[in-house]
């Protein structure tokens, strides 16, 4: 599984993976048996590792879309499935064009060997001397913040006096804990706290352990100082060894 999630990195995204799978059929996009393609895609994505969730989300989104196409194509009336399939084919064909063009561009990328120079410096003043109506500032501001619909970041004054403490997120500690299991499925409970740098980090680590236990990703054995944490297989849910 580790290997699989690593290997998905070589794809630029779900579309790239789909094109790769289509390529194996040695037929054009319009002739590809779409249901077979969906099966193969889901086969690859099934192996995604949870740790890679962020990178995997785009692959999963596509998987959901494909599953939907597959589902509607099982219905007696095929119109929607046909429409969705055509849409997917269209997108794939467009992305294929994009890849082909990218390849051609990369062959032409020889111009990086031209060197230009910075403009010669003058002892001139570059000061702007046109005049504008004052209201242009207002219009530009409104344009910049998207007519007030975009949320503005907090003003600078709001930052005074916060920054001294760093807050450690529970999510980051979940990743940390799961990574620690990389070499073995069992770790001493206390080992997760050994290198903690702050109270906030220890609290976050503890909360992360509770969260993982609740999600049945880990279980405990032993007690007191000898307590150990066991990593459970993600797919087998709550089974305890």
């Amino acid at each position: 599984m580790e290997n699989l999630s690593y290997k998905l990195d070589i794809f630029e995204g779900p579309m790239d993976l789909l094109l790769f799978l289509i390529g194996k059929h040695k037929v054009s996009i319009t002739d590809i048996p779409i249901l077979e393609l969906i099966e193969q895609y889901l086969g690859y994505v099934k192996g995604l590792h949870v740790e890679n969730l962020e990178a995997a989300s785009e692959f999963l989104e596509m998987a959901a879309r494909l599953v939907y196409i597959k589902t509607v194509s099982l219905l007696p009336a095929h119109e929607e499935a046909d429409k969705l399939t055509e849409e997917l084919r269209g997108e794939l064909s467009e992305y294929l064009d994009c890849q082909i063009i990218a390849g051609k561009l990369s062959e032409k990328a020889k111009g990086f060997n031209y060197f230009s120079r910075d403009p010669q410096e003058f002892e001139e003043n570059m000061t702007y001397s046109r005049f504008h109506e004052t209201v242009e500032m207002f219009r530009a501001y409104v344009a910049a913040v998207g007519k007030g619909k975009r949320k503005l970041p907090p003003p600078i004054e709001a930052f005074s006096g916060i920054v001294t403490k760093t807050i450690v997120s529970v999510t980051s500690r979940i990743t940390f804990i799961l990574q620690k299991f990389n070499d073995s499925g069992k770790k001493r409970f206390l080992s997760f706290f050994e290198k903690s740098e702050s109270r906030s980090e220890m609290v976050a680590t503890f909360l992360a352990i509770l969260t993982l236990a609740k999600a049945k990703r880990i279980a405990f054995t032993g007690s007191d100082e000898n307590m150990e944490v066991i990593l459970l297989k993600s797919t087998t849910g709550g089974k305890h060894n």
Partner: protein
Amino acid sequence: MNDIEAQAIVEAILFASGDPLEIARIAEALDTDIETAVIVLEKFENSLKERQSGLSLLRLDEKYQLCTRTEYADKIRAILEIRRNTPLSSAALEVLAVVAYNQPITKSYIEQVRGVDCSGVISTLSQKGLIEECGRLELPGRPLLYATTPDFLRCFCISSLSELPNLPEKDNAVETDEFVEEQISFTPEETD
């Protein structure tokens, strides 16, 4: 003004500008019309070639830029201690392809074509000066529009967008990369 003087002015102005300079500006400097300016520029380009100068004249859209000849790139990098450009990633090339053929274009359109988030790549390409913002689309949210720059033309050795490679014919079969094939030596069955 004689030919030699006109060329000297062109040389001085392009040298001082550094950036690509509109033909209209060059004509203004020469105190002449655009047609005459183009002739002077042609002569200047020929004289660079004739005397085997270390410089070459590039035409990028309606702009002209003086650059070093590509043969000397390695020497210049070595002496001026310029780090070698990391080659553009395939993600960057794909984004450039989408922008070049559809400009002006929004980020969400690019992402729709590629099926993945492109914020990082877009900001890298902006920093490298290959694409730039060029206004906003008059739609809810007023999304920014992007277009390619003259530097893009220079880096890909073309003098205008019309020289971009033609779009491929629609009925192309996909060729699977052998390298990718190797990388994914597993099959889904094995992982179960």
